[in-house]
C-alpha cells in the first residue's frame, strides 16, 4: 500500500513538473497566435499607438544626440584653437627675445640691415606657415562637418523609411481588422512580418554608422600632409633668410 502510494505520489510530482516546465518554456508567440482574431484586432489600436509613441520618442532622442554631438565637436575645436593661440603667443614672445639678442650682435649698418631683413623674413615665414596650418585645420573641420551632415541626412532618410513602413503596416493591419475582425491571426502574421522586415532593414543600415571614424582618420591624414608641406616651405624660407644673414656677417657669422 505504502509502495503504491509512493508510486502515485512520484508520478504526480513528475507530471506536475513536466506541466510547469512546458508552461515556462512555451513561447509567448504561441500564446499570441492562439488568441482570437478579434482580441488581436481589439488591442491593435492601442498597440499601434504605443509603437508610434516609442518611435517618436526615440527619434527625438536621435535629434537630441545630434545637438549634443554638435556641442561636443565645437568644444573640441575651441580647445584646439585656445591651445594654438596660447602656443603662438608664447612662441612670439620667445622669438622677440631672440631677435633682441640677435640685434645686439649687429655692429655695422650692413649687419643691422641684414638682421632687420632676417627678422622680417622669419616673421613672414612663421605667418605663412601658421596660415597654412589654419587652412589645414579648417579643411579638416569642414570635411568632418560635411561628413556628419551627409551621415545625418542618410540616417534621417532611413528613419523616415523605417517609421513610414511601420506606420503603413500598422494602418494596413487596422484597416484589415476593421474589414474582417475574425481574420486576426492572418492579419497579425502579415503585420509581424512587415514590422520585422522594416526593423531588420533599419538595423542592417546601422553597420555604416561606424564609417565616420574612418573619415576622421582620413581627414587627419590629409591635414598632417598639409602640415608637412607647410613645414617644408617654412624650412626653405628659413634657410634662405639664415644664409643671407650669415653672408652679411661674414667672418663673424659663427656668432649668429
Amino acid at each position, binding site marked *: 500500500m505504502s509502495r503504491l502510494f509512493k508510486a502515485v505520489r512520484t508520478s504526480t510530482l513528475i507530471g506536475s513538473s513536466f506541466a510547469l516546465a512546458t508552461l515556462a518554456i512555451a513561447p509567448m508567440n504561441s500564446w499570441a497566435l492562439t488568441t482570437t482574431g478579434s482580441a488581436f484586432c481589439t488591442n491593435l489600436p492601442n498597440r499601434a499607438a504605443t509603437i508610434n509613441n516609442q518611435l517618436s520618442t*526615440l527619434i527625438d532622442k536621435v535629434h537630441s544626440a545630434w545637438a549634443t*554631438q554638435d556641442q561636443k565637436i565645437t568644444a*573640441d575645436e575651441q580647445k584646439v584653437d585656445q591651445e594654438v593661440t596660447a602656443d603662438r603667443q608664447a612662441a612670439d614672445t620667445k622669438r622677440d627675445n631672440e631677435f*633682441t639678442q*640677435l640685434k645686439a650682435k649687429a655692429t655695422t649698418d650692413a649687419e643691422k640691415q641684414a638682421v632687420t631683413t632676417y627678422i622680417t623674413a622669419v616673421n613672414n615665414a612663421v605667418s605663412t606657415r601658421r596660415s597654412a596650418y589654419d587652412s589645414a585645420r579648417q579643411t579638416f573641420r569642414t570635411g568632418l562637418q560635411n561628413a556628419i551632415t551627409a551621415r545625418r541626412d542618410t*540616417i534621417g532618410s532611413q528613419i523616415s523609411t523605417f517609421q513610414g513602413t511601420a506606420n503603413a503596416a500598422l494602418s494596413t493591419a487596422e484597416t484589415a481588422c476593421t474589414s474582417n475582425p475574425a481574420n486576426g491571426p492572418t492579419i497579425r502574421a502579415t503585420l*509581424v512580418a512587415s514590422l520585422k522586415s522594416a526593423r531588420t532593414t533599419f538595423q542592417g543600415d546601422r553597420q555604416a554608422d561606424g564609417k*565616420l*571614424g574612418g573619415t576622421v582618420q582620413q581627414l587627419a591624414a590629409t591635414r598632417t600632409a598639409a602640415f608637412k608641406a607647410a613645414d617644408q616651405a617654412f624650412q626653405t624660407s628659413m634657410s634662405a633668410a639664415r644664409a643671407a644673414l650669415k653672408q652679411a656677417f661674414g667672418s663673424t657669422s659663427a656668432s*649668429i
Partner: protein
Amino acid sequence: MQRIKDKSAGMALVEAAVAVLVLGVIVAGSMYVINHRPASSSSTTNTVTAQPGTTASIDQLTQNDAQTEQQASTKADAQVQQDALSANSATSNVGGAYNESTL
C-alpha cells in the same frame, strides 16, 4: 658510501649558490639598463638648447612652435573621432522601438 653522499650534497649546494649569483647578476644588469635608459624622444617640450640670440636657436624655437601646434590638433583627434560617433547609440536605439513578436 656515506662520503659520496656528502660530496653530492656539497656539489648541489655549490651549484645552487652559483645559480643564485648568476640570477643576481642578470637582475642587477637589467635594473641598470632600465634606470639608465635614455628618455623617450616623443616628448616635445618647448625648450631651446641652442645658444640664445642665434639663428640656430630661432630655428629651434620656430620648429618647436610648429610641432606644438601640430600636436594640439593631433591629440584632439581621438576625442573628435569619439564625438563623431557619439550619436550612434541613439540611432541604433530607434531599431528597438518595438518587438513585433510580442504583438
